[in-house]
């Protein structure tokens, strides 16, 4: 019993005693917390839950990406050349936007974030860069994309990163929403989605992506972590093209701690390899109990 207690105590130590809260605010949607643990600065949405960490940054090496899923998002670059119009739904600390801006200074990047407090914290603590080309807008992602479709805007790289470990906005995980995303995707563009789905939701999510985009790619480098879904591409790039792109970009991505070679080896194409039952119910605006399914 004593040993178990000691073990518990030891496990909580790194998270409680060393972390220093440097900013705390209650926004319209959540509690926002900026925590400093040594060199690591993190944005969290909830004090009690470790899963709620949204974004982190090494203060001494701000370029270096911390989270595996952020790194995996860059597998998108194996599918497109020089993105010029990028749309990011869900800002977090802004690390994706900053990295893409550094890689492609001339690219237009639009960040859409529902919570104005998150944008403020990203600016104040995480060096979120905004320029004439890099903008942020406070809006629900679904509405932004619907309006973009009306204006016939097109993006060649769309990153969906609006989910967090605790909560999935259910209207951003339906067939109708993906169809709207597809309608603003430029020819030859790509959609990258960071998903937190586990258990039952995993199948429904896969079936829904498949229904709209056809076969897609799961990027998984670690069995225990999230997957990144890459969808919307017309054909799977050939091995030769993948190697070409790795050679061209791998060195540029090293400062961000993104191993493009490794990512290129962890692309799982669903064609002929679907890991969900064929009769899985597709999520729609009419049927979208994503959060309930995620707990089952």
């Amino acid at each position, binding site marked *: 019993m004593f040993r178990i207690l000691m073990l518990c105590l030891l496990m909580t130590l790194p998270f409680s005693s060393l972390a220093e809260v440097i900013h705390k605010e209650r926004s*319209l949607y959540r509690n926002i917390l900026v925590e400093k643990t040594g060199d690591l600065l993190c944005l969290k949405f909830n004090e009690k839950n470790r899963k709620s960490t949204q974004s982190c940054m090494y203060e001494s090496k701000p370029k270096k990406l911390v989270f595996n899923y952020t790194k995996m998002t860059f597998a998108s670059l194996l599918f497109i050349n020089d993105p010029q119009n990028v749309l990011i739904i869900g800002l977090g600390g802004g690390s994706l936007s900053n990295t893409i801006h550094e890689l492609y200074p001339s690219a237009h990047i639009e960040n859409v974030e529902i919570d104005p407090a998150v944008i403020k914290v990203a600016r104040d603590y995480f060096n979120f860069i905004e320029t004439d080309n890099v903008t942020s807008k406070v809006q*629900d992602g679904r*509405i932004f994309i619907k309006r973009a479709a009306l204006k016939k805007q097109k993006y060649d790289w769309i990153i969906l990163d609006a989910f967090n470990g605790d909560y999935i906005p259910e*209207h951003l995980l*339906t067939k109708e929403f993906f169809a709207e995303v597809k309608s603003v995707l430029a020819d030859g563009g790509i959609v990258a989605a960071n998903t937190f789905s586990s258990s039952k939701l995993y199948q429904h999510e896969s079936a829904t992506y498949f229904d709209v985009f056809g076969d897609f790619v799961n990027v998984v480098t670690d069995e225990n972590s999230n997957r990144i879904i890459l969808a919307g591409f017309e054909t799977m790039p050939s091995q030769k093209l993948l190697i070409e792109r790795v050679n061209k970009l791998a060195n540029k991505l090293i400062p961000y701690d993104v191993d493009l070679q490794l990512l290129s080896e962890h692309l799982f194409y669903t064609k002929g390899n679907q890991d969900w039952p064929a009769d899985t119910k597709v999520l729609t*605006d*009419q*049927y979208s109990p994503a959060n309930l*399914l995620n707990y089952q």
Partner: protein
Amino acid sequence: MNKINALIYFLAFSSGFCIMGIELLGGRILAPYFGSSVHIWGSIITVFMLSLSIGYLLGGKLSTRNPSLTKYGLIFFVASIMVVPIVLFAEPIMTFIFTHIEDSRYGSLLASTALFFIPTTILGMISPYSVRLLVTDHEKSGQVAGGLYFVSTLGSALGTIITSFYMVLAFDVNDIIKTFAAVLGALGLLAIVVSQIKTKERAVCLES
């Protein structure tokens, strides 16, 4: 408690159940066009409260003119019909509002008004009308009203939890709303039929 009164309590319970079930699904219906920010719930709750308050006023007024179980059933029947447009016209109505109003606060307020104002107003008429049918002794009027609020609000609580915990997992939003409409319509018919039988029975009693 006589059977007629039991029926009235049951109907009031069911209307409470349907009102909150529909209100809860309102969030789902609006989300694709207006998002899921707090102001969406602001719009929905405002419209429901406003229409219920007007419904109470109208129901109370109506109950002063020859109240009967048949008219009570008719309220349910009309409510049932007015719920159907939510299923049939939500898409075109919301598309129209979305393209004409940029601000999603006013867009969602207008959309909830267009979709929910009429059916909820009619459903709001049920409570005061029920009180009128149940009260026979003015000394007990407060007790009767209390009992009725208890039953209909309990229905609302159950409608909220059952819809949000279980029904959305099993059915499409539109199917749930159609079911609510069907239930309201069936209950209205039941009240009308019971009322007719009672009238005949009374006529028979008087003749013999």
